[in-house]
């Protein structure tokens, strides 16, 4: 176990988010059982008031989840000096089998959170809270993920053992110990390029389709997820190589460092924003038929799709630009 402030902060945050969601989850069960919008009872009034608290709590919880995702990566980066063979964040995540699951869970929770917040926003626009049950069912689905994340992350940090000098034998033991794998394996560049631009095309088409016909929001969301996955794989597979100008360095985290002009932020910020907007757009477009939120869906869903498309385009342009401006040339090697 390592007692560094960043680790303490990450564990603290996960624990608090867990508590917040448990509180909300308990309330969700109560609400799902007792909610009756037509009733004027004191209980119903209390429930309605309580929803304000839950919205606020969850907004904060998901915002903190985003910051903790960033902190998690920064922390992995900064601890790379403490493990034999770990050159950067990738190596630190490979230290034990809990590293990557924690990262993936954090990303999934963040995206689920944006869906929840979008639904919540839409729900508050309708006078009769038409989505309230769906919203709280979704919350009950997110809760186990948050608890798992807390567990997995705690295991990850508890089972870390830094390779420090012991008084008895100096480097002897670290010679015996095998270092952690410093690299991530990657898709072949050709497949990655096809996946990246194929899903990109899919996003553009489904987005335009939605803007023209007001249909297929869900398809847009799903193609957004596919585009996200393809984009991450392409960053690992070939975009990062061009940023590092090194034919074997695939790390998706080192591009966040100052040494590479913070190139990672120019890719990840539009990508994450675009994906979460696409998810939000799809999740609210489903409720067009409900009369009380119909007008809100008509206003907000196209806006979200529009923004998501712009951001996806920015991402693709930047991804192409980083490859184009690089001094590395892999054309003759990859054919």
């Amino acid at each position, binding site marked *: 176990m*390592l*007692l*560094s*402030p*960043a*680790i*303490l*902060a*990450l564990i*603290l*945050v996960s624990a*608090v988010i867990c508590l*917040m969601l448990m509180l909300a989850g308990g309330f969700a069960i109560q609400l799902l059982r007792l909610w009756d919008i037509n009733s004027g009872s004191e209980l119903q009034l209390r429930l309605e*008031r309580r929803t*304000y*608290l839950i919205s*606020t*709590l969850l907004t*904060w919880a998901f915002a*903190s989840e985003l*910051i*903790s995702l*960033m*902190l998690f990566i*920064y*922390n992995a*980066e*900064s*601890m790379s*000096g*403490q*493990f*034999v063979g770990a050159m950067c964040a990738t190596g630190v995540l490979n230290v034990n089998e809990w590293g990557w699951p924690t990262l993936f869970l954090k990303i999934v929770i963040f995206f689920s959170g944006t869906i929840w917040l979008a639904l919540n926003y839409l729900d508050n626009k309708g006078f009769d809270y038409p989505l309230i049950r769906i919203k709280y069912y979704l919350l009950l689905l997110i809760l186990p993920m948050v608890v798992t994340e807390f567990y997995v992350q705690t295991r990850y940090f508890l089972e870390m053992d*830094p*390779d*420090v*000098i012991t008084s*008895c*034998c*100096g*480097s*002897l033991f*670290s*010679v015996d110990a095998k270092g952690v794998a410093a690299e991530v394996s990657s898709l072949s560049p050709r497949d990655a390029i096809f996946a990246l631009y194929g899903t990109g095309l899919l996003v553009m088409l489904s987005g335009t389709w939605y803007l023209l016909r007001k249909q297929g929001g869900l398809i847009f969301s799903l193609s957004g997820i596919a585009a996200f996955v393809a984009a991450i794989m392409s960053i690992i597979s070939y975009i990062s190589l061009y940023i590092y100008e090194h034919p074997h360095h695939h790390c998706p985290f080192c591009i966040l460092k100052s040494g590479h002009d913070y190139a990672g932020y120019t890719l990840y910020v539009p990508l994450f924003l675009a994906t979460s907007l696409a998810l939000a757009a799809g999740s609210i477009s489903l409720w067009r038929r409900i009369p009380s939120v119909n007008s809100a869906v008509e206003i907000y869903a196209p806006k979200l799709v529009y923004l998501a498309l712009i951001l996806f385009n920015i991402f693709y342009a930047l991804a192409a630009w980083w490859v184009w401006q690089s001094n590395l040339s892999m054309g003759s090697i990859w054919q």
Partner: protein
Amino acid sequence: MIEFIRKQAYLVDFTLSSLLRRKGKNFGLLFVYTLIVFMLASVMLFTHSLKKEAGIILQQSPEIIVQRLVAGRHALIPADYIEKMGRLRGVTSKKARLWGYFYNPVVKANYTVMAPDHLVLTTTEVIIGAGIARTIGLDIGDYFTLRANNDTFSFQVKDILDKHSELVSTDLVLISQKAFRVITGIPEGQFTDIVLSVRNPREVRKVAEKLVQKLPDVRPVLREEILRTYDSIFSWRQGIVFVLLVGALMAFVIFAWDKAPGLSAEEKREIGILKAIGWESGDILRMKFWEGIIISLSAFMLGYLAAYLHVFYSSAVLFEPVLKGWATLYPQFRLVPFIDGLQIATLFFFTIFPYVVATIIPIWKASVTDPDAIMR
């Protein structure tokens, strides 16, 4: 969009004037909040810079230090070990070093005495670190004395080491090898340790492995290991200080819970009036949210700025002894300012996050109360 921004601007405006109406309470809160940020930020900035500094210094040190062990203790290493090592592929230079510590009871400090072979010094000449020169008031040409083996040896100060390297050289005394052997009684042909330079960092561990096979009684200490150890030790010390400060943090959270969103009769009345003139619960929540943001950000920036000044302009007077270690000949050095996302995000989670969590429920309680119930 413009509508939205304008609405928020009015809310901020209202919140500010409402905060200023209760100066005493809010400045009290701000003060305590700033203090918490200041303490945590000082610790972080200071240890982070020390880590950086250690890394920079060790960049210059040799890749492998070879020590001989006798009965598990560090012992002198014979010069012929260099030959015994033979030719190790990848090693660019092998050098035997002669060095040790001397305790001076007068200034109650330890000197690090080295006999470098690349400097030409006569047996009566010495080069000293700036810390020693400052403490005993010596200048070039003055006489410097070492007491050892019931004897006193005087040297003439030939030079004083550069101020820029003071963190490492403050207590350093450089003398000739001959003088060193006379003072310490280390016989000819024996050395303190052997250092190896390895050009390619990937070969370092292999070289160390070969060394241990050839010479079973030595232990190689790698530079990367020292760096790793420093890294974890500094993080660990920082963690310990943070854990100790958690008590203060908890007190602050309780204080915030109790005070921040203000459920004093007067504030309750204000909320009641606002609701009576048409504010919704959501508006009250938003106003209180801005209140929290204003207080948090002010405290965060003030605290961080104060910590920055404290660490980089006053050398962290408050925390220095705990975090740096103990020594009488303290080097005077200006740390290199270094700020990164990791620090800011960690600090955010230790200060703003608990504050927000602690105030959500009281704020919500205030915002959903019925106006008539409050004003009555």
